[in-house]
Each structure stands twice: as structure tokens, then as C-alpha cells.
């Protein structure tokens, strides 16, 4: 039986919770795989190696940098879950700041902390086989990935932009119709374009799509009245540095 392990690093638990939120599929999945390590769900911890490891969270401490190496060595296929694990998450906002100053804002004795100056994605430390984007990930994509890995095929994960999904679902474009700033044109699909469906611009929680057109997005955002600073902040939230060139061109 395939063994499955779920690991957590710096994160909110939302991505691994998405697995427990598969209420209709959870027991079926549990019949087909042996859940060998999933602290949020079970006290039982079975020794590795593990066929599939799901990794949530980013690397923010020296101890975690060492732990991910061990997990990689014990895992057949390693899949990262969510913006934390694929892009450093919201906690990567420290990467452009002084972490000691950050710590002093939150803690009375920051000298007790043993944290890295950065929050980095898992792929910056070890080889990753598949990445699920989103803050949080999409349940459908998670199930597709697990089903594919159980069947021995590659998961079908889109690389196109949220705009495509929006059009496919006949949502009214929030930029054209309401002048709302929207990162949809440069953001990876996967969520089902749920924000534009509510009349809200995409704020990029799935991170950049493959080969985004940064220049065109820049013009679009400026046309909605955003300043360069606004645009920087818009890009730098849930996938802080992932937008890279697209963000540069835009601001």
C-alpha cells in the first residue's frame, strides 16, 4: 500500500486542513493509502521511507532547514502545498525587512529566537517533484494530484492564468466592468476564479502563471489608479517575491 506522509513547516495549517476538508473523499483515500505521518490527524507515526510526502509551510529556522533534508531523503515523491511551501508564504514579508526589528516588535525577548532572516520555499532547499499553488491550495487539485500519483501518472495542473477560467465561467471582467485592480492576467489558475465571481479583483494568492505579461499588467493596474507603491504592496502579500519580473515591470 502506498504510504503517505504530511509535514508541516511555518504555515497556518490551512493547506493540510484542505485534505481533512475533503469530507467526501477522506475515508476512501484512507482505504487506499497508509497514512504514515500526519500529526494533525493521527498520533500514529510510522517510520519511513514514505512513497509520497506532502509538505506544507516554508523554511524559517535552521532546524527546519535540516528537517526538510531528512524528509526529502525519506520520501519517494515530494509535493509542496501552497504559497508557503512554494513561495515562502506571507511570512516571506520579512525577506525585504530587518528580521531582528520584526522580532522586537512582536517579542519582548527577541534574543531567544532562533530564526533565519528569510522565509524560503521548499524548492530552495531540496528537489521538489510537484507543486500545488494557492493560499490555500484547491481541494480539487489536491485530489487530482493524489489520484494521479496513486495511478502512477503525472498530475494535471494548469499553468495558464486566472483570466482563462474567468472567461470559461462567464464571469464579468472586474477590470473592464468596474475598474477594479486585478492580478488575474498574471496569476495561475486553479481556484476557479472565485474572486472575480464575487466582483473582487484577484489578489494573486495562487502566485504567477507561466510566462506572465508583466508590461501589460502594469498598464492595467496603473489605469485603475494605483500608485507604484500600491502595486508593490499588491504583488507582495501572499507570494511575496514570486512575481519577480512581472512585479518589476508593473511598478
Amino acid at each position: 500500500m502506498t504510504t503517505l506522509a504530511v509535514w508541516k513547516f511555518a504555515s497556518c495549517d490551512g493547506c493540510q486542513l484542505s485534505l481533512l476538508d475533503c469530507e467526501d473523499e477522506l475515508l476512501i483515500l484512507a482505504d487506499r493509502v497508509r497514512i504514515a505521518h500526519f500529526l494533525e490527524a493521527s498520533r500514529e507515526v510510522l517510520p519511513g521511507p514514505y512513497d509520497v510526502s506532502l509538505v506544507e509551510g516554508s523554511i524559517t529556522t535552521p532546524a527546519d532547514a535540516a528537517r526538510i533534508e531528512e524528509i526529502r531523503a525519506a520520501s519517494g515523491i515530494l509535493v509542496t502545498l501552497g504559497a508557503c511551501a512554494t513561495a515562502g508564504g506571507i511570512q516571506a514579508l520579512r525577506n525585504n525587512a530587518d528580521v531582528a526589528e520584526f522580532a522586537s516588535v512582536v517579542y519582548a525577548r527577541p534574543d531567544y529566537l532562533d530564526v533565519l532572516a528569510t522565509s524560503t520555499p521548499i524548492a530552495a532547499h531540496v528537489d521538489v517533484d510537484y507543486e500545488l499553488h494557492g493560499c490555500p491550495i484547491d481541494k480539487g487539485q489536491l485530489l487530482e494530484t493524489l489520484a494521479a500519483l496513486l495511478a502512477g501518472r503525472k498530475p494535471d495542473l494548469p499553468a495558464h492564468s486566472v483570466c482563462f477560467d474567468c472567461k470559461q465561467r462567464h464571469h464579468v471582467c472586474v477590470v473592464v466592468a468596474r475598474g477594479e485592480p486585478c492580478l488575474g492576467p498574471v496569476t495561475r489558475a486553479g481556484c476557479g476564479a472565485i474572486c472575480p465571481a464575487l466582483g473582487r479583483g484577484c489578489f494573486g494568492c495562487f502566485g504567477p502563471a507561466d510566462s506572465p505579461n508583466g508590461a501589460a499588467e502594469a498598464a492595467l493596474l496603473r489605469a485603475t489608479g494605483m500608485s507604484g507603491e500600491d502595486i508593490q504592496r499588491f504583488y507582495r502579500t501572499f507570494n511575496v517575491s514570486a512575481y519577480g519580473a512581472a512585479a518589476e515591470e508593473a511598478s
Partner: protein
Amino acid sequence: MTHRNDRLIDVRGLARVEGEGAMHVRVRDGAVTDVRLEIYEPPRFFEAFLRGRRHTEPPDITARICGICPVAYQMSACAAIEDACGVTLPAGLADLRRLLYCGEWIESHVLHIYLLHAPDFLGYPSALHLARDRRDLVERGLALKKAGNDLVEVVGGRAVHPVNVRVGGFYRVPRPGDLAPLRERLRVALDQALDTVRWVAGFDFPDFHHDHEMLALVEPGRYAIERGVVATTGGLSFDVSRFEDHVVEEQVPHSTALHARLAGRGHYLTGPAARYTLSSRWLSPLAREAAAAAGLEDQCRNPYRSIVVRAVETVYAVEEAIRLIDSYEPPPIPAVTVPARAGVGRGATEAPRGTLFHRYELDADGLVTSARIVPPTSQNQAAVEDDLARFVAGRLDLTDEHLTAECEQAIRNYDPCISCATHFLDLHVDRG
């Protein structure tokens, strides 16, 4: 049976709590000298990086503190920012917030009852193991949890980190037709919730009582969820705006974790049992009846029975959601404008795990200049450690393995949400 006088029990990697923690117990000459519940969740610095963000951003950002109760973070953040900007929500939008919050209470409570806590009482390492013997029970729990998630999804746009919430209200309000199928699901969920109360009421509860002061929001006339005044079982009652006058966070010598205390009074407990103890009379008749049949009195001071209180609150939340859907009329506008202004705002709501307080300071442009978040887990930590010390003292003849399991169960009584405990540090003090 091992019975050593001196021992150090280290439970690394506490299972089935949100986030990761550790507990340390030190015993000297047969007496418990030190108990530490420790979180080794790496700090994420939310209060630091909220500075410089616009006043519209904290609801989305602070949701990411906890994937299990994002709505609570969104609601407390909205309340605090609206307070800073001098805006009060019209009744229709406030009701919609309460409806959304009911969804989170249901999914979070049921997650805790079925997936995290009940397996302890029944001797299984997880609900998945329980499902091998009693699939029907676990299926009932998952279905009930799903009803809560569906509610959050319909009103909030997504089950984890809802995208429809904004300062001032929502991006889009549901059409009555969106809520009709939900109502049908909730009717079924109500029976499942009542069955859940009966089920957990039959568990074996250790005879254990505490006398901590308890703190929760109270809203005379109805069970407090998304607003209220702060009240304690010791007779204190104060407005949320005075939270920081009464609740002080202290650094204690044995740990870097900040412990919240009531000024001049000491540690206290927040959470379902505190809410129930302060507000049980405001529950619906059906929820009160279920509580009485489950053996709960007007107060709950046995932490093990918190699982029964969660089940009763689930009944209440399901019923309340149905009531809110029945009286729902789409508000004329999805959100009121919240113009930025310089000021300080405070907000507190009842997260499933207890009172969650936020404070923001804004400048004239609406940029956040400082933020403070006091989550339930850090408020409870001192009281939990106190309980654990007494709990362990009565069980020193158990093997380490057995005691470990019992301590884990005891900790889960409080449903500590460790990823939310933004103030917890990982420090090991070697006292030789």
C-alpha cells in the same frame, strides 16, 4: 510499573492539535516542580509586517494566521478597523457576518470533536482508525463538518481563507436562492449535531475540576459570537475598548511564552466552556435541552466536558444559521464605505477557541502603524499549565507512555490552536 521519583517527560510533536508544540514536565522528589506547554511553531511576525499595510488589508492578511479559524481573524480585524474609522455596520450586514461565523463554529468544532478529540476517549490513535470499526460515526462527523464548510463557502466564497469578507461588509451578498439549498443541508445537520451531543455525552469523563476565572464575550439576549462585552465569572465586565487595561501579557521566568493574565487577578480561561458558563441561559431552548440531557449544568468546570460543550454549541450554531437564513433579506448594499482616518480601533469576537482580540493604530492615510493580536491560546496557556500540573501530580504512578497519552488528551481539552499562538516561542531551559 515504573515509578521513579525524578523524571523529565518530553512529548515532542504533540499530535492532533493545530500547529506543533511540546510539553515539558519536571518532577523532583515525587512532586511536580515545572510544567511547560511549549510551542515550537516558528514565529511568523504578523504584527510586524502588518505595519505599513492599508486599513483594508488586515482581514485577508490575518486570516493566514490560522487556517482552521480564518473567519475569526477576519471578523476581529474588521471589528477593530471599523472601530478605528468610526463605522458601525447596519443590522443586515452584521447578521450576515454572524451567519458566516456560525459556519466556522460548525466546521471547527466538528473537526475538533470528531477528528482531534473523540479518538482519545475511545482509545484510537485517529479518526481514520476509528472509521475502520465505526465508519458510520466518522461519516456522520464528516458530513456535519461539511455543512459548516459549505456555509462558509457560500457566504465567504471559500472554506479556508474566505475571499468575500471586507472591512465594511462583503464583496457580494448572497441571493436568497443561494441559501435555500444550504438550509436543507443544515436541517439534516441539526439532527447530526443532536446525535453528536448524545454520543459525546456518553464518554467517560475523568473527575477533574478547575476553579479558574473564565472570560468570554457576553451579549445579553443571545449567545455571543461576533460581538459583546467582555465578562468574567469573577464578576468583571468591561467594554472591548478596555481589554488592554484588564488583560496584561507577561513573560514568565520558565518560558519565553507570553502569558495573558487579568490585571491584579491572575490567570484565566477562555473558550467554549467559558462561553457556556457565562452565557448558557442565552442558548436556544433546543440547545439548552440537549445540554441538560447530556448532563451539563449551567456551568462547565470540568475541562474534559468541553467536548460536550462544543457539541452543544454546534447545535446552537446550526440552529442559529437556519434562523438567520429564514429571516434573510439581501442587504441593499454589500458593504458600507469605511473612510480611513487616524485613530486606534479595537475589536474582539468569539473564535471557536475563545476570545480573539485585535488592536490597530492607523495614520491619516489609513496605513497601519501598529497592530496587536491576542489569540485565545496565549490567553489560556497559564491556566492550562496550572491544570496540567495538578493533573500530572495525581498520575505519577503511570508509565511515561501512558502519562504522555493522558497529557496529550488533557491538552486537547483546550483545543490549543498553536499556529495561532503568535506569541509562543521555542525555548528549552536546562535546569539540570
